């Protein structure tokens, strides 16, 4: 599914209909001329003929929601931004993509860097921003190189730089590599990292739109959100809303991994059932095993059992209604041979490793959740530890500067809610050495 040659005609046709992956089947589309030949940068040129306010209005009307995980309406977020076009400000693309299970942004930019660049130029024009950064996680080295090359091509055609296409608009864009810290995916953690410091989130208020990078107005958007802008410009908000649901319009990139036959990235309208995603787009369960659980939106999302997995529609509302969150759209499919205790253990280890350490409840809590859950390793695990885990996780929520503590607490409580019996057995069974 990730190879151009392996696409069926139906799949190719589907891609052309969708917003983000519509160029993905074209060989060499990371080259600017190939991208342009296929229609790329047309919308950027058209955007310069439009009133910036009109572009913002269109994005708002489209109902596009932040695709990084928070799901906050992008157009509304843009509305908080200063209208002073002369003031110094920044546009930052969040390409840190470190939520376990997520690889959609990587998949998008490694093939088609220009769609992001085009989206950023249009957004910069709409918001009156003169400088932008693509903050990409350090591990995505080749993707960073690809983006740098693409940016260079764009500069060569004056799509970036001073007085773009003689429209009296300057926009400089740079790639900035991170260095291995999940917390830099949090927008203020990202800003701290961009400032050359530890990636520790900042207190809100003030919000980045008012006081962000270097104390100046900063708009931080996810890769997928920015990459959707050219399509919305071409076909309009109403066309975008034809896909998805009323509150979750448009398409979404989902990264699916785990016990399926065809893991990878797909683009489908929001509201597509998880059942369809697994059975149709991912070729069904691997080796014919039964489905036991699904993590629907990255490791921070509470887990679904099989019954809920087969009932849920993948949009923000339905997933939330069923007790989890759509998040980054990272789906991990788990079969009935797996031990949920192990899954929770790996999850707790992750948050312990990634807590930035600033806030006491998160710093100490993430460490303790892991320790309590691993008491079994020295034969000291008790069934009552599950209650302790639940209560401790609950006390970490809503207490901290950023949502990492909640991101650790929610899957913990979620796993306990859905698989308590299995966890109790897991902790009270000493580990055989």
């Amino acid at each position, binding site marked *: 599914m990730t190879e151009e040659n392996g696409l069926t005609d139906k799949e190719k046709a589907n891609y052309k209909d969708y917003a983000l992956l519509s160029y993905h089947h074209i060989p060499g589309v990371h080259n600017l001329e190939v991208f342009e030949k296929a229609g790329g940068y047309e919308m950027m040129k058209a955007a310069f003929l439009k009133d910036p306010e009109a572009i913002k209005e269109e994005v708002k009307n489209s109902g596009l929601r932040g695709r990084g995980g928070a799901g906050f309406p992008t157009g509304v977020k843009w509305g908080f931004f200063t209208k002073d076009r002369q003031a*110094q400000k920044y546009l930052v693309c969040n390409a840190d993509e470190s939520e376990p299970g997520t690889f959609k942004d990587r998949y998008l930019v490694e093939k088609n860097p220009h769609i992001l660049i085009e989206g950023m130029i249009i957004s910069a024009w709409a918001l009156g921003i003169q400088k932008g950064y693509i903050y990409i996680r350090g591990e995505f080295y080749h993707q960073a190189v690809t983006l740098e090359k693409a940016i260079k091509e764009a500069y060569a055609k004056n799509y970036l730089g001073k007085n773009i296409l003689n429209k009296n608009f300057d926009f400089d864009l740079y790639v900035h590599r991170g260095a291995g810290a999940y917390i830099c995916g949090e927008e203020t953690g990202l800003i701290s990292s961009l400032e050359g410091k530890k990636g520790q989130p900042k207190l809100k208020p003030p919000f980045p739109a008012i006081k962000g990078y270097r104390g100046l107005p900063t708009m931080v958007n996810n890769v997928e959100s920015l990459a959707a802008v050219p399509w919305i410009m071409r076909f309009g908000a109403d066309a975008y809303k034809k896909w998805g649901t009323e509150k979750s319009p448009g398409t979404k990139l989902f990264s699916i991994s785990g016990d399926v036959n065809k893991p990878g990235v797909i683009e489908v309208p929001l509201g597509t059932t998880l059942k369809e995603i697994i059975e149709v787009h991912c070729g069904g369960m691997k080796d014919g095993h039964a489905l036991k659980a699904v993590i629907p939106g990255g490791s921070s999302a509470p887990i679904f059992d099989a019954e809920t997995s087969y009932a849920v529609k993948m949009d923000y509302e339905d997933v939330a209604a069923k007790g989890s969150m759509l998040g980054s759209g990272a789906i991990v499919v788990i079969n009935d041979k797996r031990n949920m205790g192990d899954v929770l253990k790996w999850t707790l280890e992750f948050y312990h490793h990634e807590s930035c350490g600033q806030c006491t409840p998160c710093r100490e809590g993430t460490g303790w959740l892991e320790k309590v859950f691993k008491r079994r390793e020295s034969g000291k695990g008790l069934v009552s530890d599950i209650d302790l885990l639940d209560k401790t996780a609950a006390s970490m929520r809503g207490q901290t500067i950023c949502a990492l503590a909640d991101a650790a607490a929610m899957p913990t409580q979620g796993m306990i809610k859905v698989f308590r019996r299995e966890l109790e057995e897991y902790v009270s069974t000493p580990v055989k050495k």
Partner: protein
Amino acid sequence: MSTQKFEFTPENLVLYKEYLTRYDDVQSALLPVLHLVQEQNHWISPEAIAYVSQLMTIPEIKIKEVISFYDMFYDEPVGRNVVHVCTNITCSMFGGREIYQGLLKHYKADYLKPCDNNRLSFQKMECLGACELAPCMRLNNDFVGNVDLNSAISKIDALP
């Protein structure tokens, strides 16, 4: 451990100057600069910290803070090749942890400690963002997916 003075090669100095032009203040260039130090010398020695501190007028403690915060920066020597093995959820489901332990055993290595004549260092990492290739590793900058212990070993043996 050598206490050699560190300074950028002339080529890297040119790159450093270019990095500075990307930002509106000097400190913002710190992460790219530290990546550059590691491209030149694999790790960031105390001498390199002193060098960067002077070059960019940043207190040494602040540089040390940054190095200690990020998984990809090393303030202790590492091998010429760094092997990252993902041990997060999907990769663990497909044996990533056993591969990591297997590699440590095979190369008689420890977390990050240089081995095989300073050729290799092993580091278990969090989700690399390539879960469709689970279990996945990085050999220096390259993702290598769908590995098992044997294919991992043969790829690692081929590293310079």
